[in-house]
């Protein structure tokens, strides 16, 4: 971990369409351990936002408590951030999203924050299909309290002190698919090539976009016997497909290989391109996605990529039929019924 970040940037850093160089999307210096998987994910977020020409102030970062939840401070310093309470980020994100449907809501959580204390909120934010990106930086342990097993630690996995986890792990990706999440992806913090397009597609998805990222804890869970160590994950990753994300504005000029490939058209015209590796898996079919995840798990493999997507996703605002204008922009003349209406109400109560 370093304490000073060099401020020098290459004078000819490429600019995105908004005229911003990538450093415009950075945050403050990370205080996580050197080599932490979470920092790689932050870097992927920065890259994704840069490539997507996101106006940082039109994105809100939200998190709970834990190592992972600290990361929103380490990217997009021009965005508002909210580091809430342990396991409760989904509720804060729900309120924030209801207040202003026009921003991108970027939630970051950890395996303790999501799979234990925040399980209830995680489950219900999926159910409501809140329009947000929800990344779990999943390292199977509690880092900030020094390495206790979390609920996503695999049964039989060893932690740094050599203790073997006795309990069945909670598989967040299959849980999300089962609960009806409309976008479920899984990735590995060390695979930026895969992670960046996933983040980009997630930001465009009109509903709850879940990305479970295996993110090894270098300090407490990177030992032999851990199933969330860099070595183990690299050996057991099984990519479903290579993923490309083609935003709407871009001309579609990607050349498809001869192998099977799939386009997923998003509601705004963007395309997700999946070059499939597994013939029997269809990311548009929930049952098929579920089978793929379970089959991989049975083989001790970690299936990555976009596992399931529902391009017809309808988010909470759609379900509640709220005004197209952000609710926080409405003024008294629209909101207050006024004294005449009150006269009528009084009359009805006599």
């Amino acid at each position, binding site marked *: 971990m370093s304490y000073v970040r060099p401020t020098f940037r290459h004078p000819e850093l490429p600019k995105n369409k908004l005229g911003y160089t990538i450093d415009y999307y950075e945050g*403050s210096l990370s205080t996580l351990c050197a080599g932490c998987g979470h920092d790689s994910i932050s870097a992927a977020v920065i890259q994704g936002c840069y490539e997507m020409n996101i*106006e*940082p*102030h*039109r994105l*809100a970062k*939200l998190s709970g408590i834990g190592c992972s939840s600290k990361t*929103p*401070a380490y990217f997009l*310093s*021009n*965005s*508002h*951030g*909210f*580091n*809430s*309470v342990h396991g*409760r980020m*989904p*509720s*804060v*994100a*729900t*309120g*924030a*999203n*209801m*207040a*202003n449907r*026009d*921003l991108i809501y970027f939630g970051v959580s950890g395996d303790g924050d999501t799979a234990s204390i925040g399980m*209830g*909120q995680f*489950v*219900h934010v999926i159910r*409501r299909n809140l329009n947000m990106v929800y990344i779990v930086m999943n390292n199977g342990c509690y880092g900030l309290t020094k390495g206790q097993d979390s609920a996503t630690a695999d049964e039989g996995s060893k932690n740094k002190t050599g203790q073997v986890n006795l309990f069945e792990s909670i598989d967040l990706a299959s849980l999300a698919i089962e609960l009806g999440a409309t976008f479920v992806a899984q990735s590995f913090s060390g695979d930026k090539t895969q992670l960046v397009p996933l983040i980009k597609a997630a930001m465009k998805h009109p509903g709850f976009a879940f990305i479970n990222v295996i993110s090894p804890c270098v300090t407490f869970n990177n030992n032999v016997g851990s199933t969330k160590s860099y070595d183990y994950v690299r050996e057991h990753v099984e990519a479903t497909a290579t993923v490309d994300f083609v935003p709407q504005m871009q001309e579609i000029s990607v050349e498809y290989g001869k192998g099977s490939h799939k386009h997923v058209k998003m509601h705004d015209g963007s395309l997700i391109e999946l070059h499939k590796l597994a013939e029997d898996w269809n990311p548009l079919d929930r049952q098929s996605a579920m089978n793929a995840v379970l089959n991989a798990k049975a083989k001790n493999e970690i299936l990555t990529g976009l596992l399931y997507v529902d391009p017809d996703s309808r988010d*909470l*605002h759609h379900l*509640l*039929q*709220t*005004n*197209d204008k952000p*609710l*926080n922009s*409405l003024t*008294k003349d*629209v*909101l*207050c*019924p*006024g*004294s005449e*209406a*009150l006269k009528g*109400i*009084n009359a009805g*109560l*006599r």
Partner: protein
Amino acid sequence: MSKKLKKKIVKKATKKVAKKATKSVSKKVAKKSNTKKVAKKAGLKVVKKSVVESKSKVNDFVIRFANVNGTGSASANFLFTKAIFRMGIPVTPKNIFPSNIQGLPTWYEVRVSEKGYLGRREGIDLMVAVNPQSMLSDVNAVKKGGYFLYDSSKTLHSQYIRNDINYIGIPLMQMCNEAYTDARQRQLFKNIVYVGALIALLDIEFSVFEGLLAEQFKGKEKLIPSNVKALQLGIDYVKANFKYPLDIRVERRNLVKDWILMEGNAACGLGAVYAGATFAAWYPITPSTSVVEGFSEFAAEFRTDKVTGKKNVAIVQAEDELAAIGMAIGANWNGARSFTATSGPGLSLMNEFLGLAYFAEIPVVLVDVQRTGPSTGMPTRTQQSDVLEAAYASHGDTKHVLIFPSTPKECFEMTADSFDLAEELQTPVIIMTDLDLGMNDHMSPPLNWDDKREYKRGKVLDAEMLEKIEKFGRYLDVDKDGITYRTIPGTHPSKGSFFTRGTSRDEYAVYTEDSGSYQRNMDRLIRKWNTAKKMVPAPHVYQKSNQSENGILFFGTSEYAAEEAMDILKEQGKPVDAIRIKSFPFSKAVEDFINSHKRIFVIEQNRDAQMRSLLMIELGINPSKLISVLNYNGLPITADNILGQIAKNLSGSKKLKKA
């Protein structure tokens, strides 16, 4: 309606009589029945005359309906209340209901008071007992000389016979069985029949009911005749069998004026609509559920875009109270006025988030409709027992603004005010109502709204203002009042963003564990607290100058009984001064009132004298000066109770008892 006293009061009626009577009713001619004879046959003691020939109590009595939950009694009982109200007579109904949907006993108590006393009063003048389950306690609850109206379709068991009360037997079940064929109707109209009986017994104007039914069944006019028929059955039976009206009865007055009859919860919900709340998150819990339901109903009316049909409001039923307040905080953080409502157990769950909102300085409005605790307690009974829990909710050094409304009008106005306060102070504001206020209809002055009123959004910087600022500091006390400037996400591309957190931070919202920064921030929060003292609703001081060395202090729904007690003390030549607290933190007026009296009776509806503790803690009042008057049986406090407790401390010994 005829007021001829052509019939004797009948003390008892038996099955046989009932049958006879029902037959006559079905023939539309109610015949006089020979009750005495039949009662004797049944082996019951017959009371020959009215036991107590009390002088007529016009517009001053309490009637209690003992019903079975889920049998449709609520609307019939409310019809009764509303009829009294429409006759211009002050009336106050109280639901005493179980935590149950169907089958358990439920009571509805109506106090009619010419003097306008709207608090609860002990002593039942007339019991309408239609629930066999609770009949024994119902019989015993009737005041000596009072009346016991019961369903005489079956013989009244001897255990229910008292010599000191009057019995009015009406064969409700039999009459309905004969008059209606549908099983549900037979059940429902029993309630309307006894209301009909009360029309005759209490001399209520029939035309008032005609008006009420016409309003209730607007668009469903087909239902009116069957209701009128049921009322008429009751009226005819009374006329045929009893001396009527009773000594307790009503007479038209003009005392209600332009007042309304409303539940506090609906008023809170409406206040939120008027205040411009665009988001509510909630978790159902008695007795607060109808706050957001009320909000939802009014919002459906006033917040639906007439052209697009889209809603200018979002309401989310959360998975629990933690999520409910989390959502409300998230929306407020993002610039939408938002609130939640809960009761005791929910308040406990919301503690963590309340601490976050206090420390991270996010506005949020919470309506706490208090019920009896601790734990699940009695969910359908009233209490003021969340005072300390709310005042200091969450770990660490926290204090929260509390608002104490007493009437539906105040529920409406103070809810609207709370949104201003929460945003101006950037902190949670908790509206402390209770089940009594929230779920009972209260007579209240009409709701009032000034169209010139603007929403006070507090210190929020827009893009233009941010442009002019060199460096934005979220927690920089620019104005030295402890209240700093905030920004809403999405306002400006490069200025105004900051990280909201529950961890310590410096004036620029940057994480820090520096002791000095932490302490500076905590001290500023106290500076803000002191600013709040000047902004929260001032107490109501009842007198321009002190009349007595004794004062009474109360808040919320204790107002009704306390004002009545005050009147009585005055009549007894022992006047006391009074103050009603409307908010916390306490303003100087509260301190002055306490300091200028020798002893203060603190009236509250909890066991532990929580408001007294709060006064001691926050104002450093000598405990021996504050004498508790407490009520914590789950029922609204009564004037008699207050008077009794005050008398104990005032009479005889001059020693002042501690609470």
